[in-house]
């Protein structure tokens, strides 16, 4: 026999009863006791094993992310199967209906037969939470395990004593143990287990095992409930999201079509006004020319507004895609300077550009940045009185080109600075200007476009003295290869 046999007690070497031949009576008693002890240990070990097995099953159930109904049914079936109970019922607190509602039951032929006598489908066999006659309700209230051999105790007020006795006969359940399922101060429900023996016949070990399991059962059910709630919320959110996406699509289509419909008559007004202004319909009286000029300018303003609203619609639906190309910002600014030169000269405004010839290129969407520059120079022009100055200064600073538009215009009040880059953030008193008004959308669009390029835009102003708008754009080589640093004077 192996010397290391761990269960060697006295001369007995195994858990089997040894032959009781030439041994003393004392020996026999000793051996019988040892055997009993070993048998008991083995039995407890097997229950331990089952506990671990059930705990593992519960953990599997948890990870499978099923519905509360499925999870509770799996728990009921697992406990009944592994621990040899006759039946299990799980009932959960339904706060809305203020009842305890069965959600899972052992689906044995006897239990199904018993359910028929209750006369209701399982999930409708509810017990009011305030019915203290019912032992399951008391188990929850007292947060205490309850035991009964009268089925009426758990079925009242659904059935009478006679029916309860019939159910007991059919299901062969002798005893019912009721475990409250409680997490912290939250009562989830109860687990009722039916035994085909008396409760006293349950070993201490079995009872301990069960109470160990109950906590895990409660956690498993709670987890399933949480998951179910999350899934419900998720699907509600998905539906809401789909609706929003549809609405957004409809809004964009509407904006596109509406702007098309608006632009068509505006094109006609603008074009015919232009023809008349340019004497294509014969010479104009000065007064008539002035009036038609106002028609023309107002139409231009409307067209500009529609274009800005379209831009915003595109920005806000995330549809703006930059068509980047490497561009010398100084050339772009020169073009814009030329556009404004005639207008500024008329008012004796000195418009100048100060940028080094070796300005590194920027990788930008030409049209978008042209729009930014036009807007900023246009604003400076609108708010700068006669004999003023507008300076555009461009400098390379580290990884960006910094462009400042500095005017000697009216300036902006300190309290208005925060409104500058917001939608419809047109400032008090800025409606009446030399050339008309802005929509209040221009700077908002500028900010969006500059930021889309990875730059930023800021404003400084002293009321009555002038304003400086500054925006940055990353130097092209820093976008292509951030590792490359531009050396001083390297880019001649």
């Amino acid at each position, binding site marked *: 026999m192996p010397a290391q046999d761990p269960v060697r007690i006295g001369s007995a070497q195994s858990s089997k009863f040894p032959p009781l031949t030439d041994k003393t009576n004392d020996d026999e008693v000793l051996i019988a006791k040892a055997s009993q002890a070993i048998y008991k240990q083995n039995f407890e070990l097997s229950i331990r094993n089952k506990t671990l097995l059930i705990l593992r099953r519960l953990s599997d159930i948890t990870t499978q992310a099923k519905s509360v109904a499925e999870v509770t049914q799996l728990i009921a079936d697992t406990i009944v199967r592994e621990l040899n109970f006759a039946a299990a019922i799980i009932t959960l607190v339904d706060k809305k209906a203020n009842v305890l509602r069965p959600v899972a039951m052992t689906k044995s032929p006897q239990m199904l037969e018993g359910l028929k006598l209750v006369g209701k489908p399982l999930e409708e066999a509810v017990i009011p939470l305030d019915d203290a006659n019912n032992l399951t309700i008391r188990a929850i209230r007292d947060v205490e395990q309850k035991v009964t051999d009268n089925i009426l105790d758990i079925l009242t007020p659904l059935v009478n004593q006679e029916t309860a006795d019939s159910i007991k006969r059919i299901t062969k359940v002798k005893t019912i143990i009721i475990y409250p399922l409680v997490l912290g101060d939250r009562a989830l429900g109860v687990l009722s287990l039916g035994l085909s023996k008396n409760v006293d016949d349950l070993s201490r070990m079995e009872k301990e095992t069960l109470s160990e399991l109950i906590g895990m059962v409660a956690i498993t059910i709670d987890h399933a409930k949480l998951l179910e709630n999350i899934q419900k919320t998720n699907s509600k959110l998905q539906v809401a999201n789909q609706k929003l996406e549809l609405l957004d699509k409809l809004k964009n289509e509407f904006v*596109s079509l509406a702007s098309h419909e608006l632009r*068509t008559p505006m*094109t*006609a007004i*603008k*074009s*015919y006004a232009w*023809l008349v202004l340019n004497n294509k319909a014969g010479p104009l009286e000065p007064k008539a020319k002035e009036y038609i000029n106002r028609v023309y300018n107002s139409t231009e303003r409307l067209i500009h507004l529609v274009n800005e609203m*379209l831009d915003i619609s595109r920005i806000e639906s995330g*549809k703006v895609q930059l068509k980047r190309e490497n561009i010398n910002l100084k050339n772009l600014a020169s073009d814009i300077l030329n556009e404004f030169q005639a207008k500024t000269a008329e008012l004796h405004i000195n418009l100048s550009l100060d940028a080094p010839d070796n300005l590194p290129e920027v990788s930008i969407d030409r049209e978008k940045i042209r729009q930014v520059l036009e807007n900023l120079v246009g604003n400076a022009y609108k708010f700068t009185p006669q004999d003023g100055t507008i300076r555009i200064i461009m400098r390379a600073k580290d990884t960006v080109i910094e462009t400042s538009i500095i005017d000697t215009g009216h300036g902006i009040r300190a309290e208005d600075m925060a409104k500058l880059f917001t939608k419809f953030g047109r400032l008090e008193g800025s409606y009446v200007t030399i050339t008309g008004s802005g929509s209040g959308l221009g700077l908002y669009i500028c900010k969006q476009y500059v930021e889309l390029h990875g730059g930023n835009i800021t404003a400084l102003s002293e009321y009555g003295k002038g304003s400086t708008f500054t925006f940055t754009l990353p130097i092209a080589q820093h976008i292509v290869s951030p590792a490359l640093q531009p050396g001083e004077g390297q880019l001649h």
Partner: protein
Amino acid sequence: MTDVPPLPKKILVVEDDQYIRELYIDIFEEEGFVVDHAVDGDEAYQKMHEGGYDLVLLDIMLPKMDGLKILEKLKNETPPVLPNKAVVVLSNLGQETAVASATSLGARGYMIKSDYTPDQVINKIKGFLSE
């Protein structure tokens, strides 16, 4: 060989809005171009299918058949004996998807009508005609 004066350029204006159509016809004729026109998609398709234009100014939103559909149909056909030399979209619909579709279907340019004064339109189309 004697010097033959160059034939005037032939332009097809596809435009359903009467005022804008007549505007373009007027200013183009004044520039000495031969101007034909179409008022809806079907008529435009027929005329473009027959071919022979130096430039087609094509609107997108049109009754009966839209401009993109016309371009798509023509792309899948055998070109006419005298193919149209260039198609430029002249529309007030600025959707990026429409611009991308028109370009991929062979349009030489995409102009937003409301952005241009009559003299600017003439300068632009002269540019397209001399390409």
